[in-house]
């Protein structure tokens, strides 16, 4: 690639040289023309700069001499004379012969070079400094000892106007090692006086790195002049001789020059916590103390990390304890919701502040508690590899399994419950999907088939896909079978998606022969139910002859979901938000116009709906304007009519007692902020039972 650039440079240089010749001859006629002088200077400058970049060092250093002289001419320190023009023309010819020489691989006439340089220097009247062509790129060998530095970076107000982003510099510092950054915001003025284009903040940074001081200075190289910068080494962490006690807070503040020895002594005399006292006395601001504290903790942490790094940094905990923790967090979320609601109902500022704080903390606690139970799905994947190997030899097929996204994390309980359905799906792919080697070769495919298993995060759920390059699904066979089994009538018109979905219908099997692996027709509907129990969805796409793809979408966790809270009469219900598409209004006229059929016209599309008030036999009059919550289930849009949509809700799922276990259409319950109970709708099941009644 470099050669292309070298060639481009040469072409450009030849062009510049011929231009230079013309300019020089013109300049001889009009020696005062500053435009011409500028043009000559630029030509030289470009040849020098670009020459050095593409490895023409001899040309660069030679041209530098000419450029120096013309810089003087440009600045009026030297006038254009006949000898100057002659010399420059000679220099131009010399550059050209150097370029030619580089082409043939030989060197240019060195004596001529030396003569011209001598002549130019004589003209310039002084020994011009020789061109420096080497560059200091070699950094001192990275010191292997880790040193903790204390850095104070105080950019000037106008730093943003230079296009520098202090944030980038801090990010760069973080890349050097273990880093703690404290922003000092005491300088930020009141809003009326604040200029949004100025930088009022400065930063105290504690950095432990093995890159040395120069690496830190390099970070700030462009802003050196635009900021106050101090970098000091505060601690070394090499070998085992660093067991000295860490510095006391007061000592750090003293070292930073934020307080004096006398002030420290007077504060210490009172024998309380130093930081609080120093702030109380108005000697230092809270921020400065915090910065010092962070430094103290940072050094402690680095030491501790050294001590514990050998011991490993994970512990084993029985799963029940984690489950208990998650349950407790669930209760806490419920209580917190009540607290927030209570606080919102009263005009008590103090209470709202506490409620807000609790809300924030609960959110963090919930996320990290759920995070503990997350496991990578990889261990399950490797089990499947064995399964594929054993089954393919049993079936006389050559099948390879590839996986992707083994590191994708899912709730432990979800992974456990996902195992059986996935085994079933893979078995199906192997048995029905991938053809025998001879069949594959006849169809122009490679002998061995591939099953690809992939997991990937998508929003608050995980997508697991099983893709094979086998025979695919024969739509006509599916149709014939469904008619034979009485699942659909011969007249039924179905979309491709609906047709594929028939595979999940109870009592459906397309394999002509029953093998020990699959084909008893009890499989796919069980798989679907298992996935739906995890509040997931399953989808099939296939091109006949090329293979099939099954996509399973599973929520990240089971304990807490986002849902839409709705009201019918005085009862509350929840719909899982992941299923909800949109909400539209339904007026009495709409209902009257549709002649008793439950169909709504949404942007020219007819959407069937289920009036929940009717379905759940809730007494009372429906309001003038009802709401339809439109959900997407199994690829078709179905609406649910409710009185009012209240909004999004973080729902902690409580299972219903044994007596209610078999209630259709309800998957659980939750407790609302005011203590009342809302039922969680099992949307797919509701749709199914309504469809079954209609048929």
């Amino acid at each position, binding site marked *: *690639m470099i050669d292309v650039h070298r060639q481009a440079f040469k072409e*450009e240089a030849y062009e510049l040289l011929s231009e230079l010749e013309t300019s020089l001859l013109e300049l001889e006629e009009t020696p005062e023309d500053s435009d011409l002088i500028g043009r000559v200077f630029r030509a030289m400058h*470009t040849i020098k*700069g670009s020459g050095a970049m593409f490895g023409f060092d001899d040309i660069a250093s030679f041209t530098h001499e000419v450029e120096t002289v013309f810089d003087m001419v440009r600045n009026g320190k030297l006038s254009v004379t006949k000898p100057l023009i002659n010399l420059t023309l000679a220099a131009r010819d010399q550059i050209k012969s150097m370029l030619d020489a580089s082409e043939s691989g030989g060197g240019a006439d060195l004596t001529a070079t030396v003569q011209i340089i001598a002549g130019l220097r004589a003209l310039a009247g002084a020994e011009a400094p020789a061109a420096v062509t080497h560059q200091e790129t070699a950094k001192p060998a990275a010191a292997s000892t880790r040193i903790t530095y204390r850095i104070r970076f105080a950019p000037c107000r106008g730093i943003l106007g230079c296009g520098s*982003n202090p944030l980038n510099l801090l990010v760069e510092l973080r890349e050097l090692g273990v880093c703690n950054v404290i922003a000092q915001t005491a300088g930020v003025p009141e809003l009326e006086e604040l200029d949004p284009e100025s930088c009022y903040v400065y930063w105290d940074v504690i950095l432990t790195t093995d890159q040395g001081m120069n690496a830190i200075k390099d970070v700030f190289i462009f802003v050196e002049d635009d900021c106050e910068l101090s970098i000091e080494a505060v601690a070394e962490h090499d070998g085992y001789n660093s067991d000295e006690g860490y510095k006391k807070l007061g000592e750090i503040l003293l070292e930073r020059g934020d307080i004096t020895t006398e002030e420290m002594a007077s504060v210490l005399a009172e024998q309380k916590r130093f930081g609080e006292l120093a702030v109380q006395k108005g000697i230092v601001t809270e921020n400065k103390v915090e910065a010092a504290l962070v430094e103290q903790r940072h050094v402690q942490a680095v030491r501790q990390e050294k001590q514990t790094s050998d011991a490993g940094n994970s512990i084993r905990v029985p799963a029940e304890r984690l489950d208990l923790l998650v349950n407790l967090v669930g209760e806490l979320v419920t209580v917190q919701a009540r607290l927030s609601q209570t606080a919102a109902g009263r005009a008590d500022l103090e209470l709202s502040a506490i409620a807000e704080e609790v809300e924030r903390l609960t959110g963090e606690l919930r996320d990290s508690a759920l995070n503990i139970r997350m496991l990578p799905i990889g261990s399950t994947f490797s089990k499947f590899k064995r399964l594929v190997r054993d089954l393919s030899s049993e079936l006389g097929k050559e099948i390879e399994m590839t996986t992707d996204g083994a590191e994708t994390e899912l709730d432990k309980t979800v992974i456990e419950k996902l195992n059986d359905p996935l085994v079933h799906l893979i078995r199906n792919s192997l048995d029905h999907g991938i053809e025998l080697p001879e069949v594959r070769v006849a169809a122009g495919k490679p002998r061995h088939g591939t099953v690809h298993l992939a997991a990937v995060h998508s929003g608050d759920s995980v997508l697991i896909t099983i893709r094979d390059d086998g025979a695919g699904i024969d739509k006509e066979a599916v149709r014939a079978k469904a008619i034979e089994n009485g699942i659909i009538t011969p007249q039924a018109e179905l979309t491709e998606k609906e047709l594929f979905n028939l595979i999940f219908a109870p009592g459906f099997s397309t394999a002509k022969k029953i093998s020990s692996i699959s084909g008893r027709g009890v499989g796919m509907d069980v798989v679907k139910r298992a996935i739906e129990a995890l509040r997931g969805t399953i989808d099939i796409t296939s091109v006949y002859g090329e293979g099939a793809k099954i996509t399973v979408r599973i929520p990240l966790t089971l304990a807490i979901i986002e849902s839409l809270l709705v009201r019918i009469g005085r009862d509350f219900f929840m719909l899982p938000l992941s299923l909800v598409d949109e909400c539209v209004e339904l007026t009495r006229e709409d209902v009257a116009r549709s002649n008793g059929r439950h169909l709504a016209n949404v942007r020219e599309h007819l959407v069937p709906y289920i009036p929940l008030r009717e379905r759940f036999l809730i007494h009372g009059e429906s309001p003038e304007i009802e709401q339809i919550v439109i959900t997407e289930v199994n690829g078709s849009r179905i609406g649910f009519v409710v009185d009012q949509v209240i909004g999004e809700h973080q729902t902690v799922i409580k299972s219903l007692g044994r007596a209610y276990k078999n209630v259709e259409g309800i998957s659980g319950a939750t407790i609302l902020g005011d203590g009342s109970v809302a039922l969680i709708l099992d949307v797919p099941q509701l749709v199914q039972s309504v469809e079954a009644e209609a048929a």
Partner: protein
Amino acid sequence: MAKIIMTADDSASVRQMVSFTLKQGGYEVVEAVDGKDALQKLSGTKVDMLITDLNMPNLDGIGLIKGARALPSCKFIPIVMLTTESQDSRKQEGKAAGATGWIVKPFKPEQLMAVVKKVLG
């Protein structure tokens, strides 16, 4: 979306090299042959960064930096100038005009990428 970087240089070979290096690094590149051309293109397109030579015909690098900083869309973008060692005073002049940083010629593609990453984040 790829970030857009403008390179303003009257030397076609430097422009080619800068542009090639940046494109390999995944950036989109707009080329300008001198300061005037650059300013014209800047008023029409939004760029995320500007790399400019100092010595150019029509409008030089310093003029370009000043002109660019006066445009609302370029007020806070990083501007990096290409200088040679002999131009220390010009470097100061460039900084005063509003340049963010500089690259000393000659430079290698890695050095260019390091500076771009540094100022563009």
